[in-house]
């Protein structure tokens, strides 16, 4: 399944890119599993995703907990807690 990954703030800096298109295997069923899978493939991703408590996610622009099923996600964003306003 082709998924557009988006990274923001220090997650973007640690991964080294703001977006990437990845082909996710069918057995990867949640956001957390997607992060595990990406972390196994690259040290940069592993470093960016090391502290799960500081990560937030959105599937197709809707904020979701990390244990949310991916479903037919087309865009998954990973970022730190927000600090606007």
């Amino acid at each position: 399944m082709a998924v557009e990954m988006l990274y923001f703030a220090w997650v973007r800096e640690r991964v080294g890119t703001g977006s990437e298109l990845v082909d996710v295997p069918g057995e990867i069923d949640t956001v957390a599993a997607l992060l595990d899978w990406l972390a196994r493939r690259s040290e940069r991703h592993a470093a960016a995703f090391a502290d799960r408590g500081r990560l937030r996610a959105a599937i197709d622009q809707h904020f979701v907990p990390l244990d949310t099923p991916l479903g037919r996600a087309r865009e998954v964003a990973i970022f730190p807690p927000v600090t606007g306003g």
Partner: protein
Amino acid sequence: MITVSPAPIDVAAELDALEAGVGAVASFTGLVRGDDGVTELELEHYPGATESALEQLAAEAEARWNLSAVRIVHRVGPMTPGERIVFVGTASAHRGAALEACAFLIDRLKTDAPFWKRETRGGTTTWVEPRGTDDLAAARWRR
């Protein structure tokens, strides 16, 4: 109703627009503070998702209070101390509705909209950490 843009925020124009035909206008303006050595503040956001989150907050406010207008203007990109980061304005026939909705919007914006602040002090840049008090302020509006 929602503007997310790198352009400076014109509060006079925003207030003028809110004032049309109503009795009460409340506003909040958040500015870059320079008192703690910050020389530049940069706002990153999640294009598309940001606007959706702000539209949803505005819709929640309009469902909860009798408002004639809501404006949320959030700046993104680099800013210097004294510049406006965010403007929230509400208009209503009644002052209570305008004041409460204004507080609601800025409290919830702090926790619900995908913005990230990066501060530059001297040559060092750091990502701003979220504050627990922001979660508490947002939580008081949940029923």
